[in-house]
């Protein structure tokens, strides 16, 4: 597609429920990132997929968070047993390469999925 698409744009859920957030990156982009932006906070790295390599999950805050990327394209971020502190905007971004070179690592961001946990 022309840009990075995220859905849903807004999600309100009750504490303890599971949620899935979807990211459809730009076609052909090999690198995909998930970040979390809480109110008044910066961009917190969550997870990074690069091609067929094992994902870098070092930013996932707890084992309630997981993500997968199917067929090197669409990614789903899953949060199990949501807590109120999970409320944030979850941003997905993709880029054409994660290993250097001109144009590499220039991320195109989606509009984000705003999660509110009541």
């Amino acid at each position: 597609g022309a840009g990075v698409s995220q859905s849903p744009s807004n999600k309100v859920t009750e504490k303890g429920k599971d949620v899935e957030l979807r990211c459809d990156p730009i076609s052909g982009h090999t690198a995909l990132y998930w970040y979390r932006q809480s109110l008044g906070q910066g961009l917190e790295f969550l997870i990074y997929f690069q091609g067929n390599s094992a994902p870098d999950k070092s930013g996932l805050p707890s084992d309630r968070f997981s993500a997968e990327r199917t067929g090197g394209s669409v990614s789903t971020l899953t949060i199990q047993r949501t807590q109120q502190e999970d409320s944030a905007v979850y941003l997905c971004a993709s880029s054409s390469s994660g290993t250097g070179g001109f144009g590499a690592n220039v991320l195109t961001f989606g509009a984000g999925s705003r999660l509110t946990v009541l």
Partner: protein
Amino acid sequence: AQSVTQPDIHITVSEGASLELRCNYSYGATPYLFWYVQSPGQGLQLLLKYFSGDTLVQGIKGFEAEFKRSQSSFNLRKPSVHWSDAAEYFCAVVAYNQGGKLIFGQGTELSVKP
């Protein structure tokens, strides 16, 4: 591990005044550095990037940034700020010793007063 520090959480400048937003990084080799902007209700947009070569890089919307290795800095500047520049600005570095992921600073919120 590489990191990025933006010392100023919030800055207010008058319209027409000059602007400098600070960014410091920690990385042993020549870093790949970026500035992104997030306008209210908008997604993040790339302003400019530095990979190598000329240490003064020009970006969109009249912004520029200067890479200073001796100071481990990559400060963003604009000679004359417009009201539409009010936004949050993020500095970022590629963490090549961490698999090539992009690490962001905490951001600096810019307010512009008339």
